[in-house]
C-alpha cells in the first residue's frame, strides 16, 4: 500500500511520515509543494494521499481536483488547520474521504485513517469522514 504525504511544513510532514513508516506494509512518499505533489503522485501512484489544505499559498483543493482528475478512485485525507464545518462541507464536495485537523488530530487519528482505508478496501466501500 502506497501513501503520499503532502505538507509544506517540514516538521509536521516528517512527523506524519515517521508515524506512517511504523507500519511495515506502508510505502510512504512525501511532497512539500503542489508541484512536487503532482509529480510524486504520478511517479508513485499512491492509494492514499494525506493532503495539507494550505500549501504555501497554494489551495489544496485545486491539487485535490487535479489528483481526482488523474485517478478518481484514490483515497484522500485532508489536513487542515481549522476544524470548521465549512471546510468539512467543502471537503465533502471534493469527495475527500478523511478530515484531520492539525493540532487536534493525534497519532491515533492518522493510524485510524490507515486502518479504515484498509478495511474499506476490503469491503469495497468508502468511509464517511
Amino acid at each position, binding site marked *: 500500500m502506497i501513501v503520499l504525504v503532502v505538507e509544506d511544513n517540514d516538521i509536521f510532514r516528517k512527523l506524519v511520515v515517521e508515524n506512517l513508516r511504523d507500519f511495515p506494509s506502508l510505502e510512504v512518499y512525501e511532497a512539500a509543494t503542489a508541484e512536487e505533489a503532482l509529480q510524486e503522485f504520478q511517479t508513485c501512484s499512491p492509494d492514499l494521499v494525506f493532503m495539507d489544505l494550505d500549501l504555501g499559498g497554494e489551495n489544496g483543493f485545486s491539487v485535490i481536483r487535479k489528483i481526482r482528475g488523474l485517478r478518481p478512485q484514490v483515497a484522500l485525507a485532508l489536513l487542515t488547520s481549522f476544524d470548521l464545518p465549512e471546510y468539512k462541507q467543502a471537503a465533502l464536495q471534493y469527495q475527500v474521504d478523511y478530515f484531520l485537523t492539525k493540532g487536534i488530530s493525534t*497519532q491515533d487519528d492518522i493510524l485510524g485513517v490507515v486502518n479504515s482505508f484498509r478495511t474499506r478496501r476490503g469491503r469495497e466501500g468508502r468511509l464517511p469522514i
Partner: protein
Amino acid sequence: MKDRPGQKKIKTIQKVRFMSRHRRRLRVFTLSQALLRIVLNLGWNRLRPNRALYEVETRAGDFRECEGELAKAKEDLKRCSADFSQRTYWRAAIEGIIDEVWICDAAGNMSLVNLPSVTHMGLEEFKGKSVEEVLSEVEILHPDGHLRPPQESPLLRSLRGEIGRGEEIMRHRKTGRQRYRQFSSAPIRNPEGAITGAIAVVRDVTEEKEAEEERRKAEGQLRRSESVLAQAGQMASLGAWEIEFLDQEKVNRNPLRWSDETYRIFGYEPGSVAVDNELFFRRVHPEDRRAISEAVAKAIAEKRPYTIEHRVIRPDGSERIVLEHAEIFFGPDGKPARIVGAVQDITERKRMERELQKSRDELEIRVVERTAELRQSERRLRHLASELFNAQEKERKRVAHELHDTIGSSLAAVQFRLHSLMKTAEDHACSVELAEVTRNIAMCIEENRRIQLALRPAILDKVGILSTLSWFSREYQKTYPHIPIRLQLSIEEEAVPDVLKIVIYRIAQEALNNIAKHSQAASADIRISHTGNGIEMTVRDDGRGFDAAAVLSKENHQPGIGLSSMKERAELSGGTFTMTSQIGRGTTLRVFWPHFSPART
C-alpha cells in the same frame, strides 16, 4: 356845445366835397351866360337891321366864342365826370381794404381816415378825436420797444418830405394789448410839387408776427431735437432710412432717404451721394443681398416688421456688420406705401461677442483641462487608495500565512508529539504535567488561529466567500448572541469574481461590526444575489437608524474610517454604495456592482 376836432375834420371833408360839386356848377353857369348873350345879340340885330353886317360879325365872333366855351364846358364836364368816378373808386378802395389809411393835410390835420383805422385803434368811433386824444389811449413804440415820440410818426415825417417804411408796436394803455404794425407813408404833392398833405397806410401784422414767432420757436425746438437725435444716433451708430413706393413697378428707382448716421454707417459723408435702392444693394455684401430681398418680400406678404443682420462693404472696402429693423406702411389700396427702418452698426458689439465667446471657449478648454487634471488626480488618488487596500490585504494575508506556516504548523507538530508522549507515559505525575502542557499548547494553537482569521480568514481563499460569510456570521453570533443574523446568499460561488470576495467580506464585516456597536438592532440580514447584469449585496438591520446624509458627508472629511471605508471599497471595486437610514427605522446598506469591472491592481 363846442365842436370836437374829429367833427371838424369831417366838416373839412364835406367842404372839399362841396367845392368839387360847386366847381361843376360854376362851369355850367358860365356856359349858360354865353348862350344867353348869343340869344340876346341875335334878337337885338333883328330889331336894328342897319347895323346888320357889323352885328353878324359880332355875333359870329360871339358864336365862335360860344362854341369854344361849349367845347370847354364839355371838356370840363367830361373831366369832372371822370374825376368824380375816380374819387368814388378811390373812396371805395380806401374804405374796402383791411389796411388803415390815414391822410392828412399840410397842417397835419387828418383829412381822411378809413374804418380799419378807427377799429384798429380800438376806438368806437374816430369822429371828434384829436391825435393827442388818440395817443392818450394808445402808445406807439419802435419795434425795439422804445417809445416813439409823436413827431416821428410816419405822417409827420412824410409831411417833411420823407417816404416812410417800417414797423411799429401799438400798445393800448388800458389793456396792455400789443399790436404789431407795418406802415408806409408818403407826402402828397400838388402839380407844382409842393407838399399838400401826407398819406400813410398801416397794416396790422400781429397774427403774422405771432405765427412767425411760434414758427421760429417750433423750428428752434425741432432743430434742437434733431441735433439731439443726430447726436444720439451717432453715439449709438443708429441711422434711420425711409423709402417711398411712388413707383410700384421700378422699386429701385423710388426715393430712398438716409439720415446722416446712415450715410456714415454705409461709409459716406452725409449727403455726399444720391441714395437709392441700387446704391444700398451695392453696399450690401453680395452673399447677404438675397436674404434682405427675401426678408422684405416676406415682411410685405405677412404685413409684419422685419429684422435682419447683414454685412456692409464700405466704399473703402472695410466690412461692417449692421442690424436692420424696418416696418412697412401700407396705402389705402393695400399696397406698401413706404418702409421706415433703423440701421445699427453692430460691428463692435459682434467683435466683443466673438471675443467673449473666444474667452469663454478658452475658459471652457481650461476648465476641461483642469477637470481632466482633477480626474487624473482623482484617479491617482483612487489608485492609491486601491493600492492601499490591496497592500493592506496582501500584508494581512502574508502575516496570516506566516502565523499558519511557521508557528501554527510547529505548534501542531508539538501538540502531535505531546499526544504521542502522553500515550506512552507511564509516570502518572508526568502524564498530568503533559496534559497541562497539551492544554496550554491547545490554547496557543487556538489563539494563533484566532489571530490568523482576524487578519484574513484563510477560508476565503481556500473555500470561498459564501462559506466565509457563513463562518463569520456564526462567529459573530458567538460574540453577539442577541443579534441573530439571517444569511440569504442566492448566488453561486463561481459567479462571484475572486477580486470581489475580499471586498464583500470586508464590507459585511464592517457593517456587522457597526450594527453591533451602534444600531441596537434586534436582528440583521445579509443578502447577496445576482440581479440583472450585476451583483447586489444588502445588509439590513432593524436598529435605531441615523441621519445617513449627515454621517456620510461628515465621514467624507475623514476618509478611510467607518462608513466611508465601506464606500471606498465598494467604489474602488467598481460598485455603487448607497446607505438609507431613518431614525427609528433601521439602516439598509446596498452595494451594487453593475458589470463587474475589476479595480486596478
